[in-house]
């Protein structure tokens, strides 16, 4: 039992501890041979370098803004759709099937046509990241749709019918009754959508050239730059995610299974 738990802890926390080690030790520690698990010296040099070389605060803000905005837009688009598919028998199969199929499109297939479309629209490399938000909405809507579809199936339609008797339109019933009833799974979906956007790399690399979000910057650092500073940046990326997940973890699991996310 304890062995099993220890293995679980090692497997899940191991990569993070390596990142922490890289971030807090000087670069020369990483190229020693043989490498040592515990570095001989610690230093804040990497964190300092990160702070000085790039305006990290702007990048973090942009990443957070893009994540929040794309999550909200995915919700606005996907949740009503999931609800309607749950209630509307005629469109159910086509709708969910379509969402699943579209979810399977690999980003690399549509990244270039998307960029070519964003440019004339003035959304390429936008300072507020609108083009990137659109790209994330494209990837996130199927997930939002599928999760809310599964979530609203558990909400009995009788509640909405009853509300209707009191003079509520179907859409209002949706907003005021169905959504609050399904807030657990929807919260989980919110977490997943935000994290997917926060970590997303391919579109961010192609669409945002000068106004970068964090993942391409991290990639740029590790390709040609300092591994230590890259690890420091990785820590910046991980910490909020862990905090959010810690609070909402019980919703995350059910939502991800419903949305077929994994």
């Amino acid at each position, binding site marked *: 039992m304890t062995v099993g738990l220890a293995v679980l802890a090692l497997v899940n926390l191991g990569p993070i501890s390596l990142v922490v080690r890289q971030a807090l030790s000087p670069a*020369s520690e990483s190229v020693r041979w043989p490498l040592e698990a515990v570095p001989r010296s610690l230093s804040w040099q990497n964190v300092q*370098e990160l702070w000085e070389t790039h305006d990290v605060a702007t990048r973090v803000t942009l990443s957070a803004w893009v994540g929040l905005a794309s999550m909200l837009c995915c919700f606005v688009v996907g949740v009503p759709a999931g609800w309607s598919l749950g209630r509307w028998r005629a469109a159910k199969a086509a709708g969910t099937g379509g969402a699943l199929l579209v979810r399977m499109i690999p980003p690399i297939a549509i990244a270039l046509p998307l960029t070519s479309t964003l*440019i*004339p*629209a*003035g959304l390429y490399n*936008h300072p507020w990241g609108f083009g990137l938000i659109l790209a994330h909405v494209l990837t996130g809507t199927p997930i939002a749709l599928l999760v809310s579809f599964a979530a609203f199936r558990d909400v009995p339609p009788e509640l909405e019918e009853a509300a209707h008797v009191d003079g509520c339109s179907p859409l209002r019933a949706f907003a005021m009754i169905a959504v609050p009833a399904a807030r657990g799974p929807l919260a989980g979906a919110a977490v997943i959508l935000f994290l997917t956007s926060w970590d997303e790399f391919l579109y961010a690399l192609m669409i945002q*050239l000068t106004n970068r979000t964090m993942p391409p910057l991290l990639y740029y650092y590790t390709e*040609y*730059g300092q591994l230590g500073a890259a690890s420091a940046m990785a820590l910046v990326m991980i910490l909020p995610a862990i905090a959010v997940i810690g609070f909402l973890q019980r919703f995350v699991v059910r939502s991800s299974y419903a949305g077929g996310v994994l």
Partner: protein
Amino acid sequence: MHKFRMSGIRVRVQRMLLGVLVTLCGGATGSCNGPGSDHGNVTIAVALLPSEGAAYARILGEFSDSTGIGVELVAQQYQQIREALRAEAAAGFGELDVVEFDVYLLPDVATLVQPLDSLMHTLAGLREAVTADAWNAGVNLDSSRKVLFVPHRLNWQAMIYDAKRLVKPPQTWEDLRLLAQNRPASIGIKGARYEGLVCDFFPFLWQAGGEILDPRSPAALTALKFFSEIRSGIHPGSISFKENTVLQAQEHQEILLHFNWPFALPLLRSRGLLPGSIRSAPLPAGPHGSATVLGGGYLGVPRTAPHPIEAVRLLEFLTSETTQRRLLKELGWFPPRASAWGELDENLRQEAGGFIAMKDQVRARPLVQNYDKISVLWQTALAQVLFEGEDPEGALHNLSLSMDELGPRALTTQTQQSE
């Protein structure tokens, strides 16, 4: 009942208005400022290492102070700059005022930048101060011979080796052959299917007396045979090595030597490896002497640049002798102007000794229309010989046939075309 119907319609109308509003906002803010953009400044895109950012920004700051023109610096890899430039060209408007490209990408982006002949006043002086090879790389490929790019910094390859485990680096082909026999898997080659692979090979081709456009010559066979002979000494990871991954293999002491550009030096210094454990040396010399391949960053002004006049002033600043001396001193960037070398300081000599020794043996890749296709053909032949065990004669034969198919026009250099 009446109330119920009205509320339904009202909701729908509200939704529609919201949608329209959002779309309008999206379009309008296309021209608004956000946290990252800046008005009225020159935007320059350069391939900088993260460690070089601060020093380069300081030099640009001097330009801003003396002329009052603000400069926005964007650090990107050349491929991303190219994609961004293509995107801006397709849209007809853009943000970038000055762009830097590697010399082998210049033919690809030539149509996206504007000629500098009438804009830049210091061109004549610059032309005289740099070598013909370096200058010609930036000049238009067709008969108009307009100046499209000016050299910002020059690069060439040298050997980077592990000074602790390899006391005497190989100085001739024979030394390298012996090393390959005695120490298997100790040589790193940038073997991924990209330009870097031929950059490792072309110096050897030139050292054998061959030419890139002439695969049927005996020299080409000599060079390719030599590579085939040192196969046992090449590290198997080479099949996918690029500049950064082969450098990492060197840092982690997985290989004894490899060939790379000067960008490696500040990275090695930051890890504490230069000049103690790792040093640079000239490429091993061949039957026809020594040679190395020219690379470098070239600056151009895009056709869609919003501030072309200020951009040209920045170009004049960056290609001036004082700035090039400073770039050499602070960043270790090799200046295109021969006179900017000046008195070499001891640190530079120690760290970049191998590179500096090859200063006068730098040769450019041919400036032909289809260079990228020719390069791919050579990459295929090399990959076949190095990693698939194909014999050099067969590979060269296929290469010659494919090159013939490209047509004679594709192989004439620009000087021949303009005659």
